[in-house]
């Protein structure tokens, strides 16, 4: 194999990994092997032997096989797209399979065998197709593809979470499956998956040579008679099938498909064929080693720890490591706002939005379910429901305004229309800290949770700041850093959920953003926060107007850049920290509101601040009305309902943005 002659060499690396794997394997298997080699026991049922033969061994094979298939899938995607960030995890394939199988679990629970595979395949294919459709205009640019993948993943995850919360809170099997457990009880799944792999593997190898040609240059390939488009499509379809089959048999194993090809490439596998082969080898070994380590470290009596969640926790930071490679080469940077026609009187637009938000507030106060059905409440009936409606609506409006503001600040700061607390990972950071405070400290009081959220969002912002400083705030770097934080949060939530800890349900509730029973106190705090921070931002409108020009020009025009940056970051961090405990990290309002405002042509900084806040409030109020009207007496989580609107909006935005 030519790759063996490479300087570092994926072969040598694989041998090293193999040695480590074997050593761990011996440690894991030794007791059982010694038992099996000894004299046959007298007992009729030799459980050690049975477990070794029908559980441990197929599990090892399964780990190798799944890892290899995912590694291969990642390498295929990366070669077909010329994108080092592509993988089943990052382009939405896994999430699609996860949602499809979740739906199947609810509505057709008896599905197994090829039926399950087909469902997973349909979901994975649909999600991936959507991602491609959305990033087509950008020529499948690395960053826009992965951003679309992130959004589709978040959306699918939000839907699956909503199903779990509403349909069946005891649906723990779904959570386990989502976490990707490799445990096996017979050879049947492994042999079934092996057959599927054997069907797909030759196809992948056949594609290696033509893909190499495409990589050398699309025109050259076309000259040689290689239909580049069709070839890419085939490679992607193959990768989706590989990932979907793995998902159907063991669940979601995150990030192996990203990490294995990255390591293969770093170790010196340059040609497509080498990359495919070594990604499969390395993927298999990585997953096997991880699984053995999980088995070894978890021990027979420790808490249940699904391997897929572990790979996700370990693998998501790898995204950060991969970032420098992307921002320098292939990715066309996301350009600041397309020249929208600026409104001549932006203040009037802001006023209209504010009036609409007020109208929505009033409507939501009056409209609702009454004993007689859905409708307007008046008189005594209104008096009876007002104490329940106003805190909810005030909190929604306040959180929406805060997120709209935070989104605008971040977008002005990074000169990037895709920046928002949700995408940049600030919301995830806040949630992360809230989770830690509940699980580690055990406190669930509103004050401590908000405090934790503040620390978390500021920490996430600092992280973004540090990462961004080196690249002078290269927008794509900021976004992808956020993506990695989001993925890490998701992985941790999955680990917690899989153990069946009921606190995980509470956590899901948080992520979902239930506003229904916000206490009047919290509602007032959120609203007061909005009432203070929005005017504060208005005072800074000069900075907001100049910073999008870039830091050097802004500095030349007299903006104290470091101070301005720190102030604006702190302001948006505070806004997110106040809003997140109420509405959760998934609402997408921080992304939607400033973009709607921009589409409306409101560009003057001061008007944009007001309009973004008003628009954020409006969006969450409308979502709140829907959340309370749709499934009476259930009050759906407002944050999730907003994201069900917000995510498609984001996708539309991604799609309609013109290629750079």
């Amino acid at each position, binding site marked *: 194999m030519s790759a063996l002659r490479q300087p570092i060499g994926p072969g040598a690396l694989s041998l090293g990994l193999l040695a480590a794997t074997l050593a761990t394997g011996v440690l894991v298997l030794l007791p059982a092997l010694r038992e099996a080699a000894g004299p046959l026991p007298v007992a009729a049922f030799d459980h050690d032997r049975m477990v070794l033969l029908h559980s441990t061994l197929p599990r090892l094979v399964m780990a190798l096989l799944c890892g290899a298939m995912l590694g291969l899938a990642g390498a295929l995607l990366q070669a077909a797209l010329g994108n080092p960030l592509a993988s089943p995890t990052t382009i939405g394939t896994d999430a699609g399979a996860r949602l499809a199988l979740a739906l199947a679990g609810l509505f057709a629970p008896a599905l197994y065998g090829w039926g399950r595979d087909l469902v997973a395949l349909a979901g994975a294919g649909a999600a991936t197709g959507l991602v491609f459709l959305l990033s087509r205009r950008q020529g499948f640019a690395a960053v826009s593809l992965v951003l679309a993948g992130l959004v589709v993943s978040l959306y699918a995850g939000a839907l699956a979470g909503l199903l779990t919360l509403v349909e069946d809170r005891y649906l723990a099997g779904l959570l*386990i499956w989502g976490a990707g457990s490799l445990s096996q009880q017979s050879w049947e799944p492994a042999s079934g998956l092996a057959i599927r792999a054997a069907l797909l593997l030759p196809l992948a190898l056949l594609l290696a040579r033509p893909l190499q040609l495409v990589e050398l240059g699309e025109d050259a390939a076309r000259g040689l008679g290689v239909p580049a488009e069709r070839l890419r499509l085939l490679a992607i379809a193959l990768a989706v099938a590989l990932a979907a089959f793995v998902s159907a048999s063991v669940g979601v194993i995150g990030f192996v498909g990203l990490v294995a090809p990255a390591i293969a490439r770093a170790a010196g596998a340059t040609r497509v064929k080498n990359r495919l082969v070594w990604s499969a080898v390395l993927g298999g070994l990585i997953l096997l080693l991880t699984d053995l380590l999980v088995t070894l470290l978890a021990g027979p009596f420790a808490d249940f720890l699904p391997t897929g969640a572990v790979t996700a926790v370990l693998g998501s930071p790898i995204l950060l490591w991969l970032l420098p490679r992307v921002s320098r080469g292939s990715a066309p940077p996301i350009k600041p706002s397309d020249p929208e026609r600026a409104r001549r009187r932006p203040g009037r637009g802001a006023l209209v939005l504010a009036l609409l938000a007020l109208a929505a507030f009033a409507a939501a106060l009056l409209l609702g379910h009454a004993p007689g059905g859905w409708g307007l409440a008046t008189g005594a009936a209104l008096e009876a*429901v007002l104490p329940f409606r106003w805190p909810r609506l005030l909190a929604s409006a306040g959180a929406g305004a805060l997120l709209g503001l935070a989104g605008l600040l971040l977008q002005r700061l990074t000169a990037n229309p895709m920046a928002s607390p949700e995408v940049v990972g600030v919301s995830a950071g806040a949630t992360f800290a809230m989770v830690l405070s509940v699980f580690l400290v055990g406190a669930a009081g509103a004050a401590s949770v908000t405090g934790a959220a503040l620390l978390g969002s500021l920490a996430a912002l600092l992280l973004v700041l540090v990462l961004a400083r080196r690249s002078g705030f290269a927008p794509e770097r900021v976004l992808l850093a956020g993506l990695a934080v989001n993925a890490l949060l998701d992985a941790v939530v999955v680990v917690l959920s899989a153990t069946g800890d009921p606190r995980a349900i509470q956590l899901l509730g948080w992520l979902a953003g239930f506003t229904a029973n916000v206490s009047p106190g919290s509602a007032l705090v959120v609203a007061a926060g909005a009432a203070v921070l929005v005017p504060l931002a208005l005072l800074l409108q000069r900075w907001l107007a100049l910073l999008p020009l870039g830091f050097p020009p802004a500095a030349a025009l007299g903006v104290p850049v470091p101070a301005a940056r720190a102030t604006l970051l702190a302001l948006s961090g505070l806004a997110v920290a106040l809003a997140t405990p109420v509405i959760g990290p998934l609402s997408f309002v921080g992304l939607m509101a400033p973009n709607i405002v921009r589409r409306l042509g409101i560009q003057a900084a001061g008007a944009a601040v007001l309009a973004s806040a008003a628009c954020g409030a409006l969006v969450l109020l409308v979502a709140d009305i829907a959340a309370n009207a749709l499934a009476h007496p259930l009050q759906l989580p407002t944050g999730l309902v907003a994201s069900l609107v917000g995510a498609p909006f984001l996708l539309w935005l991604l799609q309609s943005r013109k290629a750079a």
Partner: protein
Amino acid sequence: MKAHSFRRPAHRGAAAVSLDDPQGRLASRQQFLEGFQSVGTRQASRRAVLAGLAALLAAPVLPARAASLRVAVLDYALAETLIALGLPPVGLSNARGWSRWVVEPVLPAGTVDLGIDLAVNREVLASLKPDLILTTDYVAQQEEALSVIAPVKRLTIYDGSAPALDKAKAVTLALGDMVGLAAEASRFLAETEADFAGRKQRNAVAGRRPVLVLSFMDARHVRVYGRPGLAAGVLDAIGISNAWKPETNLWGFETVPVERLAQAGEADILVLDPVPPDALPTLQRGPLWRELPAVKRGRLTVLPPALMFGALPSARRFARFATEGASA
């Protein structure tokens, strides 16, 4: 729970039953809770709980006007206890899932569904004009919002302060006391203990094999129930040995892959419904499962649903199934 949660909302009519002046009970409740908090070891906990109970029982209680007391509940365990005491709740969160997870006692048809327990519908709740709202630690973040409607009291069985069955007994008495049905609660507790004692005798005579109690999560993973959970407590009380020895989490279960069941050896297996429809057929195709002694000898029983995170009614339901099988 601080006393301020007893504050009555000004807009409520005079028809409500008075829960004011709970001073005596509060004092005793405090002692009772301290009983839980002061325990360090499991051995000590039972004594401490009983001491707390004694203090509770000696305390003055509300006059028995329970028939008119309207209670809304955010927890199945508390709801089934109320039904057992003869005071079915007027509203219950997740009521639509009752027939799937609890089944017995039957939820009266008039019980109103309050929606998702993490965010109960306060408009619906208020329209029921409850006199008392019961919560647990898991839904506690709504307490401030709920206290606008009626006094809120929190009673948590699954908080890890004591084994679930002991805590369920204590909560039953505390709840009875709280709603003016102390006598009924004591009677129900005595009845339950007598029931368990009777079963213990019968099981001793029958010479029962150890059992493994589990729920299927999917075709590869189960929850297996052990100490300090409700099922384990019941098995101890009715003299059946639980084959799952490791300590589990405070809800009394551990999620394990199916192959771990092999270590339970000759134990009988009790599976609680609902079982995912693909689980047993899938497992049947593998030798590991087929060769499990219980499966091989047909000593696996699928039992109707019984809430493993319930209180005494669920405990008794499970005790019945564990003793007499699915047909009980």
